[in-house]
């Protein structure tokens, strides 16, 4: 299926007209039946979903899959009228026809448009609008644009395509995706946009970096398992359009959660007519796109010495997990190692001390992903629908890691009468992941092993651990075979023998009834629900160092989440041309939202019988937790847009919410917005020319209110599920509740211009915006000596200002079919934390591993300041040393995570049946704290740690370029400091950098070859062999093929979660590079 979008109301209207007027046809003598075919001007393909209307009469129809339309005009109307045909992505055409009764035919051939200035866009709660009348920034991606290449989370498929929308993928397959539109609004609360599927708000909750109760909102090195965002439940093949409403302006009608922008997704609906089958299959293969550059010259140990005895200290440095040991690959050098014959006994036979440069690459396998969707649609004029089944099988790049997704979607439309239409859609998803790798600084992150892996270790020997206990080489019998028994588990054993399974069942469903009250006036009752149940089972085998109590046979953690978000709305929408010069589009409605979240977990660090992960087998009583959250929000809203003379539109919107989370007297909050757009080329006669096809100016101001987190008004005592010697335990909540909270307010202004030049060969859509969120509700830190660690207050303000531009060029468009389009997008956001709470100058969003670096919201600076220990320097900037080692200076600001700008450049070249599209995704600036590099140097495993030991472990050494503080004279004598001349070993130098984070802060800029797609459409005559398909396309696709970056060893794109504490990484896998094939059969 191509991009036929089903416009609900158009279908509805046409259906109603058709059905409603049937009796009239029967009785009238001279009704006119208008028929025709809508095709693409280039190629002649029929354009399903195109609408053909007589605007003055408000009658029309939607073209079917063959591009055919048909409607009837009552006999009472005769004479010359204008007939317009429009379809998203095409230039609207009009034709003058003369209605004379009887039957007449008018065909249309539409030119594809590069700009969507004339397109119809899904916006607000009123449904679709012509983009030319919009006073706010919005951008719509159609299915083809969104689905050029496949990623596990549909959000990632929009990466680099929409200016101002920063989408950061997790390197962990199936992991979290962080989406921020126009900068972070909120200091500590959610900054993710609101997602709406077919009119129903859906959850994008995440369990990124989840580790039960131990994980706090400000733990940046998120240890645990990244279970991803639940948006990944959506099958991209069911998506019809993906519309980004960029800020409060466009989104004010959607309510509180829209302050961060809205992403409106519509799904495919099908249409009446013959049955159609579609098929889309993609096969891709994945490898890590970036691997660190480890050193291969020195093995495990300290001070250049190593010898295995028991892997926990009995030998020479054999308890150490660092690589400051003897030089590798020295001819004749043999040392007793964990694999040596007789290892663990005094009679160990030393074996050659050699490097294993592939020991990381060999750990990964080539990932393989198959995704398929089959869909059938069809029906009659009165009732039609679409059924789709989708399946994803992902064999991850980590051993034994895989994902399965099954989706089933059913949509149906039923014209019950000439006034009543019912629509329903239900999507069911089953999503499961097995053995996700752990993330962050803990033993369950298999990559952490590589920071701390003796560089001589042969990973192939570890892969062969089955049937061997630690006793095989001198280690404990209760452990698996490994190279170190102090700090690490065998990475293969971790992946294979410690099952981690997550399963999610989810239903997103909606039911809508539309009732035509009068021509152009419809009432709609919509009720929708998004609910899912997520079950997580983490099993920890005996001998695991993370989580398991060493005295027992293993442990487990089970989590069950249930979340539902139900919305019921009753609305009234009118779209009428009142006079020749005035068109009104108005909506009024009310919505009731009921949010429910229930989570419980059971966990224990000790079980009795190995391998049985069940509370009945718990040796240590399982800790149980349970939490229930409910939020109700009632709303009324309304909007009215007046389009005057077809070139000037003014629109006002208003919404009032009543939220359960606010105190009774502050519960109700009202927020209006106002916007206007001016189609200059229509307003000023003679302005439209060969150069200027269209010029539109727009401006908007808006406010959006937001409520508080649940249960933040009254102080509570928090119970402890564990009894102490049978005694219950309670503690006062250290977050001080506040009964006087009021709603927080985001205010946003924006202006924009949309230009179309040279008959749409060049188009530009540019915006400038300025938005501030003040009176923020957040849990501000207070002096803990007050007895509370924080207090809920209204305070603070964040401002984001920026520009966005989308430039589309069609440099080549020849009649024979060669066509080159180039799309550039650019966004620059300037964030500023204007104010925090009284007396508070900074709020820590996340902490580094050892408290040595923080990510903060600091007053007067952009959101996301990095602070840590720099080198201590003298006034001239020279590094100060003591004993040849650098000294740490005071904790200070070292950078900021905000990018200077982000952009994308997409090129599409089409020639006959061939097309090539290439997408480059760019991020410029913004700092990253790399704990991978920091600890890789500390541990002596990173390539960069070879500095100073080029000759041998202690030679030539490092003479730090700096000033030796010990040479300085005490005041009042002149300081007379001398340069440092003391040489230190690489080991001492790099370990002295502990707590000294400055050298490990990098420029996060990158350019990624994000997408590449080379496609070939089979000739139409061949296509028909496939189930009568209209088109068959085969393509070679690639994602994340090349990354140009400044930071060494790691992927500058990473996210552990969709929380706010971004910008710091520790051994997170790179976003996989994937290459594959795609087959698409379009009916």
């Amino acid at each position, binding site marked *: 299926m191509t991009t036929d979008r089903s416009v609900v109301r158009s279908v509805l209207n046409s259906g109603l007209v058709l059905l409603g007027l049937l009796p009239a046809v029967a009785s009238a003598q001279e009704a006119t039946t208008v028929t025709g075919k809508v095709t693409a001007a280039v190629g002649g393909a029929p354009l399903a979903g195109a609408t053909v209307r007589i605007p003055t009469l408000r009658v029309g129809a939607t073209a079917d899959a063959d591009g055919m339309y048909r409607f009837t005009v009552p006999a009472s109307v005769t004479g010359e009228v204008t007939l317009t045909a429009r379809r998203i992505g095409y230039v609207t055409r009009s034709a003058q026809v003369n209605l004379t009764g009887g039957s007449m035919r008018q065909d249309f051939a539409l030119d594809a448009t590069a700009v969507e200035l004339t397109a119809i866009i899904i916006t607000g709660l009123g449904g679709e609008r012509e983009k030319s009348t919009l006073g706010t920034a919005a951008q719509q991606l159609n299915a083809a644009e969104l689905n050029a290449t496949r990623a596990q989370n549909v959000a990632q498929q929009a990466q680099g395509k929409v200016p101002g929308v920063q989408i950061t993928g997790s390197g962990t397959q199936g992991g979290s995706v962080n989406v921020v539109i126009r900068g972070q609004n909120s200091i500590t609360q959610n900054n993710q946009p609101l997602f709406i599927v077919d009119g129903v708000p859906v959850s994008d909750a995440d369990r990124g970096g989840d580790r039960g109760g131990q994980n706090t909102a400000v733990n940046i090195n998120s240890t645990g398992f990244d279970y991803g965002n639940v948006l990944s439940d959506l099958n991209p093949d069911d998506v019809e359009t993906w519309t980004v409403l960029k800020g409060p302006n466009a989104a004010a009608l959607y309510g509180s959660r829209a302050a961060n922008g809205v992403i409106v997704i519509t799904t495919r609906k099908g249409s009446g007519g013959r049955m159609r089958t579609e098929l889309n299959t993609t096969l891709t293969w994945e490898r890590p796109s970036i691997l660190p550059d480890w050193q291969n010259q020195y093995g495990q140990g300290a001070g250049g010495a190593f010898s295995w005895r028991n892997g926990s*200290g*009995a030998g020479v440095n054999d308890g150490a997990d660092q690589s400051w040991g003897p030089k590798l690959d020295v001819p004749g050098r043999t040392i007793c190692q964990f694999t040596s014959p007789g290892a663990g006994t005094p009679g160990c036979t030393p074996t050659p001390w050699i490097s294993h440069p592939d020991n990381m690459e060999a750990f990964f396998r080539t990932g393989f992903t198959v995704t398929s969707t089959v869909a059938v649609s069809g029906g009659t004029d009165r009732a039609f629908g679409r059924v789709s089944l989708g399946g994803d099988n992902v064999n991850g790049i980590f051993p034994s890691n895989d994902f399965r997704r099954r989706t089933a979607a059913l949509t149906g439309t039923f014209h019950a009468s000439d006034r009543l239409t019912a629509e329903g859609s239900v999507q069911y998803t089953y999503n499961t992941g097995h053995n996700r790798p752990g993330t962050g600084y803990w033993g369950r992150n298999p990559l952490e092993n590589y920071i701390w892996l003796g560089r001589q270790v042969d990973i192939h020997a570890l892969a062969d651990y089955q049937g061997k206990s630690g006793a095989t080489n001198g280690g404990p019998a209760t452990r698996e075979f490994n190279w170190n028994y102090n700090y690490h588990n065998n990475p293969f054993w971790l992946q294979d023998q410690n099952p981690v399974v997550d399963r999610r069942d989810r239903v997103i469903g909606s039911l809508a009834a539309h009732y035509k009250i009068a021509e152009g006036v419809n009432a709609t009752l919509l009720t929708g629900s998004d609910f899912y149940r997520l079950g997580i089972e983490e099993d920890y085998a005996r001998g695991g160092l993370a989580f398991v109590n060493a005295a027992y046979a293993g442990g487990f953690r089970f989590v069950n989440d249930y979340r539902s978000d139900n919305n019921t709305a009753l609305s009234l929408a009118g779209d009428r041309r009142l006079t020749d010069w005035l068109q009104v589009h108005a909506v009024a409605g009310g919505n009731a939202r009921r949010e429910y979240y229930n989570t419980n977990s059971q966990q*224990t660090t000790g079980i009795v019988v190995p391998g049985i992960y069940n509370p009945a087998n718990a040796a240590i009583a399982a800790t149980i937790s349970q939490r229930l959250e409910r939020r109700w929000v009632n709303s009324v809203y309304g909007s009215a847009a007046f389009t005057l003379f077809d070139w000037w539109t003014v629109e006002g919107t208003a919404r009032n919410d009543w939220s359960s989370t606010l105190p009774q007297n502050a519960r109700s909050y009202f927020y209006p917005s106002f916007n206007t757009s001016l189609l200059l080329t229509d307003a000023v006669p003679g302005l439209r020319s060969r150069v200027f096809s269209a010029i539109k100016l727009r401006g908007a101001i808006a406010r959006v209110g937001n409520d508080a987190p649940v249960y933040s008004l009254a102080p509570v005592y928090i119970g402890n599920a564990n009894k102490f010697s049978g005694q219950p335990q*309670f503690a006062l*909540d250290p977050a001080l509740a506040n009964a006087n909270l009021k709603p927080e307010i985001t205010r946003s202004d924006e202006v924009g211009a949309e230009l179309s030049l040279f008959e749409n060969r060049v188009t530009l859509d540019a915006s400038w915006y300025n938005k501030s969120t003040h009176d923020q509700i957040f849990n501000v830190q207070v*002096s803990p000596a*007050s007895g509370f660690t924080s207090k809920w207050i209204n305070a603070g303000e964040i401002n984001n200002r920026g520009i966005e531009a989308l430039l589309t060029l069609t440099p080549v468009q020849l009649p024979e079919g060669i066509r080159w389009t180039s799309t550039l997008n650019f966004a620059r956001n300037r964030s500023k934390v204007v104010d925090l709470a009284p007396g508070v100058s900074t709020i820590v969003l996340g902490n580094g591993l050892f408290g040595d670096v923080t990510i903060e919201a600091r007053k007067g600076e952009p959101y996301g300041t990095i602070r840590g220990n720099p080198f201590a320097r003298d006034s001239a900037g020279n590094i100060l040393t003591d004993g040849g080692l650098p000294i740490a200076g005071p904790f200070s600001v070292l950078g900021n995570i905000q990018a200077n700008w982000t952009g994308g450049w997409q090129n599409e070249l089409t020639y006959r049946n061939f097309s090539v599209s290439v997408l480059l995704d760019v991020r410029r600036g913004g700092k990253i704290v790399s704990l991978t590099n920091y600890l890789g140097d500390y541990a002596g495993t990173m390539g960069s740690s070879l500095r100073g030991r080029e000759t041998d472990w202690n030679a030539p050494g490092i003479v730090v370029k700096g000033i030796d503080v010990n040479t300085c004279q005490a005041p009042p004598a002149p300081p007379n400091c001398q340069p440092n001349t003391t040489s230190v070993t690489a080991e001492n130098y790099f370990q002295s950098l502990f707590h000294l984070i400055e050298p490990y802060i990098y420029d996060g800029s990158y350019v990624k070859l994000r997408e590449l797609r080379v496609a070939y459409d089979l000739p139409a005559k061949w296509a028909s062999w496939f189930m009568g398909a209209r088109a068959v396309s085969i393509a070679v696709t690639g994602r994340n093929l090349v990354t140009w970056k400044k930071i060494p060893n790691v992927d500058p794109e990473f996210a552990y979660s969709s929380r706010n504490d971004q910008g710091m990484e520790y051994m997170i896998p790179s976003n996989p590079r994937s290459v594959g094939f795609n087959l698409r059969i379009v009916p």
Partner: protein
Amino acid sequence: MRHRTFRLGGIGALLVLGVSACDTNQLTTINQDPNNPTSAPPGPVFTNAARLAVTRWLGGGAMDLRGPEFTVQHLAEVQYPDEDAYRRLGPADTDGDFINAYSQELKNFQAVIDVGKANDQPLLWGPAAVMRSLVFSYITDVWGDIPYSEALQGDKGVLSPKYDAQKDIYADLFTVLGDATNAMAAPPAGAQKLGAADPFYGGAALGWQRFANSLRARLAMRLANVDPATAQAQIQAALAAPGSVFQSNADNARFPWPGDGIYDNPWMANFRTRDDHRISNTLMNAMVRGNDPRVPVYSQPTEWDTTASGGPLCATPPCYLGMPNALTQSGASAYFNVSSRPGAVFYGATVYGCPTCGARTGATFPSFVMTYAEVSFILAEAAERGWAAGSAAALYQQGIQASMDQWGVTDATAINAYLADTAIAYKGGTPGLRQIALQKWIAFYTNGVQAWAEWRRTCIPETVIPGPDAIQNTVPRRYRYSIRELSVNADNVAAAIARQGPDSFPTRIYWDTNPTAAPTYPGATCGTRP
């Protein structure tokens, strides 16, 4: 046209009314937390806070096993010796303990006190007041001037409490302990008790009176150098208060661990996953000098001695050896198998018995918060100084015997031999005070902050000096203020620093400002690496 507009307007108005008419009381009900109550009975609040307090000050964190135990050189760090070198004892490392001591423990004790006082229930608020005083004394002994008089009133709007001078805090602690003792001694008829919610004494008033008076005596003696008059007066007051001080090991403030895998002895819980700790040479040398029979309880034979694959490391196994503090990483790891781990009592399932705690495995071994041994040494010192009646020699011997009993040493012959050793037998005078201080330091094993505080007061043993890789030449005399406080209570911290001295390790806190008044004190070189 017009009638349609009316119709539209009418339906719109209906919608608005329909939705906004929703019962707002229901919205209020929805936001009542179904997970947590707005009030809780005092017993469970006390239990929880007491457990957390003991875990903090006698546990596996920066306020004991990963801090003061190294600073005072009971233990040394054999792997990643960063805490031992004071490198990881900075504000970032000790911050959490400052924060949580107030918000998790003190505030909850305060809540019990508030409820107890409001209902005139001294057997509820008394024990909470003693625990609150204990925790405040620990905090002030680590940091010096701290928030006290304005603390714990966040719910009354005091979000940035001022820092009080330690002198004033001590003065108030004496008052509070005195009041609590008097109130508990005369409870109203039918007074509520904590009962089983009190892990120390099962709610018994006498136990808490004695604990309060013993704590008062401890704090009094802490002032011996700076304010001997107060010290003397408070010790006498503590002895004379209802219930007096501990009379035997049975009175010990001993925290029993259920050992259920969730609440295990915190040292045992640490050693279960970490193998970082060895006995310090400083402690081992002080103990083996007189053949201290507690050595096999405090420590284990070295690994290579027991596995017989390396030894012999000493002439006659079993072989107990310490290791130096604050070595470099590779230097420290050389001691991995040739130095003693802490005693078997803190490891796994070893069954261990002592007269006052019964047969215990490592997980159920109690934490000794305050003991009869310590009280005996306080009284011995008071007697030697002439502040209290009694024979200093007898009290000194009683302290050693109590410590032996407490640690389960039952071999009377060995104990008598130890007491008869020329280095151990009581000498009286200043040498006697030195002996008392040394025995107290040994007896304080597992109670790091107390051992460190007494070392700062007495400079005994003098052998506590920074190890070779320590980042400074002097043993810390306090820890640095909380990073959090520096950010959210900056003005008050600044005032405290201006009064007390730079926020650094060498700055001396109030009761440490007149060391030369201590007869045991060798002078400015105390704790300084040559």
